C-alpha cells in the first residue's frame, strides 16, 4: 500500500513537471522566434526604409513609406465605417435591447466575427471592386471596417454593462430622460474601456493581409485619393517575403518588425490602461 502511495505522489510531481514543460515550451518557442524577428528586423531597419518609396529590383535601398502611409489610410477608412456601427450596436445591446432583436444581432455579430478573413475579401470584392471596376483603398478599408465591427460591438457592450446601474438611476431621478442619462453619464463612465476596445480592434485589423489581397491590392507608388489600389504594410511583407530577391527579403524583415512593434505596443498599452481602470474610492 505504501508503494502505491509513493507512486501516486511521484506521478503527481511528474505531471506537474510535464505540464510546466508544456507551458514553458509554448511560451519560449513563441518568445524566441519573435526575438529573432526583432533582432533581424531591427538590423535591417533604417531611416530611408521608413521614408522612401520602393526602388526597382537591383537598385539598392528603397523603402516602404507608401506602405506605411497606405496602411494608415486603410485604417482610417476602417475606423470611419466600422467603429460607428460597432459603437451604436453595442449601445443598443447594452442599453435598449429588445429580446428578439438582441438575440438576432448578437448571433450575427458572432457569425461575422468567425468569417475567415479571405472570405471577407471575396465579399468586398463582389460588392465594391466589381461595380467599381478596379481595386481601391476604399474597398480595402471597407473590408477592414467590416472586420472591426464584431470586436467593437463586443467590447462596447461589455464595458457599458460594467457600469453600475445605480449611476443611470441617479441621472433618471434628477429628471434626465433615458437617452440623456446614457449619453451623459453611462457612456462617459465606460469611455476608457470602450476607447481601448476600439484601439485593440485597430491593432487586430492592422495586421490583416488576406482581405486586402484583392480589394486594395498593392501599389509601388503613392496612391492619391481613395479609389486607387494602395500599398499596405502586411501585403508588402507578404510580397517581399516570397520574392526571390535578397534585398527585398531583408526589407520584409524590417517591415515585419515595424508592424509587430506597432501591434504589440498598442496591445500592451491597452492592457495596462484597462488594468488601472478603477478609480480610488475611499470611505
Amino acid at each position, binding site marked *: 500500500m505504501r508503494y502505491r502511495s509513493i507512486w501516486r*505522489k511521484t*506521478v*503527481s510531481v511528474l505531471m*506537474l513537471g510535464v*505540464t*510546466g*514543460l*508544456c*507551458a514553458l515550451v*509554448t*511560451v519560449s*518557442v*513563441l*518568445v524566441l*522566434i519573435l526575438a*529573432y*524577428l526583432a533582432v533581424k528586423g531591427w538590423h535591417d531597419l533604417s531611416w530611408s526604409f521608413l521614408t522612401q518609396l520602393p526602388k526597382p529590383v537591383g537598385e539598392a535601398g528603397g523603402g516602404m513609406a507608401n506602405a506605411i502611409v497606405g496602411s494608415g489610410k486603410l485604417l482610417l477608412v476602417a475606423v470611419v465605417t466600422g467603429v460607428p*456601427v460597432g459603437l*451604436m*450596436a453595442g449601445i*443598443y445591446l447594452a*442599453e*435598449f435591447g429588445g429580446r428578439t*432583436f438582441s438575440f*438576432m*444581432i448578437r448571433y*450575427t*455579430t458572432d457569425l*461575422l*466575427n*468567425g468569417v*475567415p*478573413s*479571405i*472570405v471577407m475579401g*471575396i465579399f468586398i470584392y*463582389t*460588392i465594391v471592386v466589381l461595380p467599381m471596376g478596379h481595386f481601391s483603398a476604399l474597398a480595402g478599408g471597407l473590408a477592414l471596417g*467590416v472586420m472591426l*465591427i464584431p470586436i467593437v*460591438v463586443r467590447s462596447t457592450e461589455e464595458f457599458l454593462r460594467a457600469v453600475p446601474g445605480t449611476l443611470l438611476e441617479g441621472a433618471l431621478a434628477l429628471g434626465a*430622460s433615458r*437617452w440623456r442619462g446614457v449619453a451623459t453619464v453611462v457612456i462617459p463612465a465606460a469611455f476608457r474601456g470602450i476607447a481601448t476596445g476600439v484601439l485593440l480592434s485597430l491593432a487586430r485589423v492592422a*495586421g*490583416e*493581409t*488576406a482581405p486586402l*489581397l*484583392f480589394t486594395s491590392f498593392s501599389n509601388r507608388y503613392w496612391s492619391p485619393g481613395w479609389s486607387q489600389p494602395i500599398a499596405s504594410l*502586411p501585403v508588402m*511583407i507578404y510580397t517581399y*517575403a*516570397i520574392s526571390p530577391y535578397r534585398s527585398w527579403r531583408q526589407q520584409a*524583415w524590417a517591415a*515585419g518588425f515595424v*508592424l*509587430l512593434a506597432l*501591434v*504589440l505596443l498598442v496591445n*500592451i498599452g491597452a492592457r495596462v490602461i484597462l488594468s488601472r481602470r478603477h478609480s480610488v474610492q475611499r470611505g
Partner: protein
Amino acid sequence: MATFAGTVTQAARPQGPGRARVFLKRLRSGDEVAHLITLIFALFIFLITCLLVYELYIHSTIPRQRFGWHFLVSRAWDPVFEHFGALPFIYGTLVTSAIALLIAVPLGVGGAIFLAEFAPTQISDGLTFVVELLAAVPSVIYGLLGIFIVVPLLRDPVDPFLQKHLGFLPLFQGPIYGVGFLAAGLVLAIMIVPFILSISREVLLAVPSEQREAALAVGATRWESTWQVVVPYARAGILGSIFLALARALGETMAVTMVIGNTPQISASLFAPGYSIAAVIANEFTEATGPAYLQSLIALGLVLFILTIILNGLARLLILATTRKGTAH
C-alpha cells in the same frame, strides 16, 4: 429597457388615437429616437451578414450548376479545360489543421493545466499576459517566420531525421522540400496554441474550488484532483476552445500559403507540398481567367465559410455550457 414598461390601469392610459399621440410625444423626448437609431445601426450588421451569404451564393452558381456535389470530391484543377474540384484543397485544409491540433492541443491544454492549477498566481498571470499578447501577432508575421526559420529547419535537421527513423510509415516518405503539409501544420500549431492555452486556462479557473477541495479532502494528490475532477468538469469548455482554435486554423491564409508549397495534390506524405482552400484563393484569385475559374474559387470560399460557421457555433455552445453550469459527469 423601455420607459413605457409601467402602465396605469385607470383613465390615465390613452387608447386608440391617443396612443399615437403618446408615441409622437416620446419621439420628441428623444428616447424613442435613440432606441431607433441604435437599432438601425445594429440591424445593419444583420444586413451585412445576410448580404455576405447572398453574394457568396450568387457568385458561385457556375460551379454549383456545372459540377453539383461532385465539386466537393473532384481532384481536378484544370483552368484550361475548366474542370475544377475542391478535394485537394479540402484535404490540405483538413490535414494541416489536424497536424496543428495534434501538436497544439497537448501543449495548450497541458500548459493551461499548469497555469491554472499548479503555478503560483503571479507566474500564471505573467505568462498568460505574454501568451495573450502572442495571440495578437498578425499571421503574416508567423508566415515570415515560417519561411525563414521553420522551413529551413525542417529541410535540414528535422525531416531527414524523421524519414530516417520513421520512414517505414507512408507519412514520412517521399522527397523533402522543406515546404509542405508538415511545415504548414507546424506553423499553424504555433499560431493556435495561444488560443487553446488562454481559453482552457480561463475555463479551468472557472471550475468552483469546492470541486478541487472535495477531491483533495478524500486524499487525492494534486494531479489526481486536477486530472480526474477538475479537467472533466471543464471538459466541454476545453473542447470548445479546441473547436475555436480549429476554426481559426481552417481559415488561416497567409502563414499557410507561405509554407505549404502551393501544389494542388493529395499525398499521404507529410513532406509533400499541398494546398489549402484559403491559400488557393489568396494565390489565384487575381489571376483567375474566366468566370468559371473565379466562381470556383468563390465556391471554395463558401465551403470554408460553412465549415467555420458550424465549428464556431459548436464551440460557443460548449464554452457556454462550462462557464455557466459545468458539464454532467
